[in-house]
């Protein structure tokens, strides 16, 4: 019941906000109220959530399209609960940012934003293959319009590129979904069996690789993250790629054990390439969003390591690092937006020296930077360490690339920090002040959650899968194929 509520609250709020002819202030207030209610629901639900339980919780199921064996079936395991939480927290921060930035055409804007949050929550809690696909596609609709209407100068090109890439991936996945579901006679994930069909597996992989993105499917990344409004970029980089994580962990690994084994080498090599490429390109980017965009890509390569290691350490690390990365990257995009609004630019050539007289901004940027470069003791370090330890089992070379990636992360993160805060004082933004309390309220919760996780990363890593045995839990999901 709670799951349905978590999905329904943003969706209903979206329709209400869109239909009621309220003023700008009331509309944004109403939207904020809805996400805060959502946060409350999630926290309330967490208190009664049994993270070690072997069954899904807060589940609900209803007949929908019984001729094809499709049902509205939702429910949560530990890792899903964390992903839903990430969506809600980042979504709330994004809506708060929009309120602070005072978006034009508020009814349409907040309606679409809430619709996006609702479909992401639905995606992470779906227990039916087709329901998953429905949410996977549905979230494109708001993203398309949000970028196209509220984005930067090259927004139309960004929408076209983004949609082209994602749709090609999702269409291949649709073919796979149809083929898989129809051969199995059901779309219910708990009843569906395993398949050894390489083509079906590759169809899924295509969609998830575009979404992550994994080299060479990353052509949409830069322009989309740059042209989208910053709060949308926060969701796009922090939460949306986790749809791929969820899909891989919950659909591909349990139901395609054979192809996963066969293609592991290829996937791990591509992930390593993604990690190296993303890190190196991030180091050469001329503006804040570029660095965060490519670092986000590099981190997804790392997370892919953890997933395709298919062992306890790797999977625990992948989930933990998904949450970490989501929070860090969302925080950085919001910060990028804040700096761009003040200085009028995010280009390093015209920024610099912002630390002087702006202690709050400097501390926040520094802290997020430290999390990005996975300084030992941070939750990011814990996540990356678990992933590397996991992938070491599959070959020491991958672990070596991963460790090199951590070094590269330090390079681009430190460059980012110094380009914003130190260096020569830039031509732009010298007369802007420190962060005001409204902005701090947006960013501090994200940093605070990261700090808590740093103190106790096991909060997530030991509470993601039943009995904290991800690998055996996932293989237990394989029901014999018919």
């Amino acid at each position: 019941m709670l799951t349905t509520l978590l999905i329904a609250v943003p969706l209903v709020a979206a329709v209400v906000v869109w239909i009621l002819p309220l003023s700008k202030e009331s509309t944004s207030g109403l939207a904020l109220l809805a996400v805060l209610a959502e946060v409350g629901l999630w926290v309330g639900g967490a208190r009664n959530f049994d993270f070690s339980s072997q069954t899904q919780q807060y589940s609900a199921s209803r007949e929908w399209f019984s001729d094809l064996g499709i049902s509205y079936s939702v429910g949560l395991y530990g890792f899903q609960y964390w992903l839903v939480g990430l969506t809600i927290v980042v979504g709330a921060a994004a809506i708060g940012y929009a309120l602070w930035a005072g978006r034009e055409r508020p009814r349409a804007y907040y309606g679409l934003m809430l619709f996006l949050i609702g479909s992401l929550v639905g995606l992470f809690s779906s227990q039916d293959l087709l329901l998953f696909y429905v949410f996977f596609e549905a979230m494109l609709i708001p993203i398309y319009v949000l970028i196209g209407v509220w984005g930067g100068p090259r927004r139309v090109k960004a929408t076209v590129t983004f949609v082209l890439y994602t749709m090609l991936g999702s269409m291949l996945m649709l073919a796979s979904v149809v083929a898989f579901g129809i051969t199995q006679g059901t779309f219910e994930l708990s009843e569906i069996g395993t398949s050894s069909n390489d083509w079906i597996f590759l169809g899924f992989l295509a969609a998830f690789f575009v979404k992550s993105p994994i080299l060479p499917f990353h052509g949409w990344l830069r322009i989309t993250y740059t042209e989208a409004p910053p709060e949308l970029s926060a969701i796009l980089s922090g939460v949306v790629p986790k749809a791929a994580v969820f899909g891989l962990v919950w659909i591909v690994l349990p139901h395609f054990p054979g192809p996963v084994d066969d293609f592991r080498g290829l996937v791990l090599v591509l992930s390593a390439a993604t990690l190296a490429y993303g890190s190196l390109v991030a180091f050469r980017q001329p503006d804040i969003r570029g660095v965060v965009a490519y670092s986000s890509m590099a981190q997804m390569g790392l997370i892919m390591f953890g997933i395709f290691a298919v062992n306890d350490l790797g999977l625990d690390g992948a989930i933990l690092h998904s949450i970490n990365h989501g929070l860090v990257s969302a925080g950085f995009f919001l910060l990028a937006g804040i700096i761009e609004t003040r200085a009028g630019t995010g280009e390093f050539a015209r920024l610099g020296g912002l630390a002087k007289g702006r202690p709050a901004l400097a501390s926040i940027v520094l802290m997020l930077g430290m999390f990005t470069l996975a300084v030992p003791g941070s939750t990011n370090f814990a996540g990356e360490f678990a992933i590397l330890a996991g992938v070491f089992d599959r070959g020491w070379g991958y672990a070596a690339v991963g460790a090199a990636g951590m070094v590269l992360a330090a390079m681009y993160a430190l460059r980012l920090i110094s380009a914003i805060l130190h260096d020569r004082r830039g031509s732009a933004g010298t007369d802007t002040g420190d962060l005001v309390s409204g902005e701090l309220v947006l960013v501090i919760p994200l940093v605070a959650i990261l700090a808590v996780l740093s103190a106790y990363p096991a909060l997530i890593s030991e509470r993601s899968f039943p009995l904290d045995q991800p690998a055996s839990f996932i293989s237990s999901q394989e029901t014999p194929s018919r």
Partner: protein
Amino acid sequence: MSQTPHVDWFALAPTLSLLGASGIALLGAVLVPRAAVRAFSVAVTGAGFVVSAVFAAFLFDRSADPTLLLSESMTRDRLGAFAALLLALVGLAIVLASWGDRRRDHVGEYYALLAASAAGMVFFVSSSSLLTMFLALEWLSISLYILCSLDTHRRESLEAGLKYLIIGSFSSGILLFGCALVYGATGELGFDAIREATGADNPMFVTGMAMILAGLAFKVSAAPFHMWTPDVYQGAPTSVTAFMATATKLSALVVTYRILVTAFPEQAEIWSVAVAVIAVCSLAIGNLAAIAQKDVKRMLAYSSVSHAGFLLIAVAANSEDGATSLLFYLIPYVAATAGAFVVVAARERELGRPVSVASLEGLGWERPFLGVGMWVFMLSLAGFPLTGGFLGKLFVFSAIYEAGWWWLVVIGVLATALSLAYYLNIVRALYMRPGEIAPGPIVATGGSPPRDLLLDTAVAAGIVVTIGSFFFVQPLVDLARDAAASLPL
């Protein structure tokens, strides 16, 4: 005293009520004072469509077992009733939407012909012999020829009428030739009798079947029999285009399926391949050509060609699931296509000239309701979730996959990906502008005619059906399955 066959008036009621409405509207065009003709015709034909829909619904309810009527020339079954119901509802929506057309002359004739051609279609979908099929086809076609060229002051409209007349007659000729060959080979006219007749394995018979299929494919506007579609759809009055893109296609598809599985089940291996080839051609040509179009009506015409491809995939499946998915797919397709043309018609009235993609710009902010409508219709045609179009495509794909033709699924999804280029182009035009300008109020490019409540009702109905068929898919699929059960599959 000669013996007359028993006439099942109830089975004929949906046709007859439309025919009656048509006659009264035609009389009204002469007898009613000029100022009141429009209101009178709308009321009469609207009532005719409502009555026809009610009869069709009752007929659906009470025709669980198919029966042949009037010396096997027509059949009373759920398939026919289902199609008749859809046809009557589409017709009603078109009647509502064309209220604001501001047509000066031929007002009464317009509505009378609309009802007459709908009556022909309702008869068409339940015909069960070659003779009645051809008769009904001519009946609906001749009404449509006149409707296309009704705007006598517009050259495009006359051109559309003429093109449709020539190519339509040509296709009827092919169909008739095919009927003659089949009759020559079997000596039978009734679909059931043809199936049971001997001598069905000679080349004359197969040639006849191919010619019948080609003749019907013209009406379905499937490639390579589609060349009239863009010109006629563009030139005809927009409300007539809306009617043709939905009702004509629907009835022609239902009849195609009916004749193929009733009369030619033995030749299924031949025709299912032929239909699959036609479907692939339609998907390729429809989608590629639609991308290049600037005129919205032309684009929607090619989009309708590509949808003919999706619908024919369901036909090629040649299974109960295929028939069900065909009938289900038609529901959101008809709603979204009719709705899209209606929005185009509204914009056309506002601008006073043909609607190009560029002249849709800003419509979404200017007229939020029509904008949202167009958005929903485009997403449904593109097969996005939360619209019935998505489940329709999914159902068609699953039917053909189960029939073992997985490569058609791959072609189908690639075509869908391609189709996004032009459907999302419309959405982009509705809401987004390129360039440096920050989002602000977009100046209305057209005039500001008063709100047209009837048109808005039609659009609202389209939205409700398009989205409703996503959330309440199972009841609709049950209806479609009941209807498909009347076919011998």
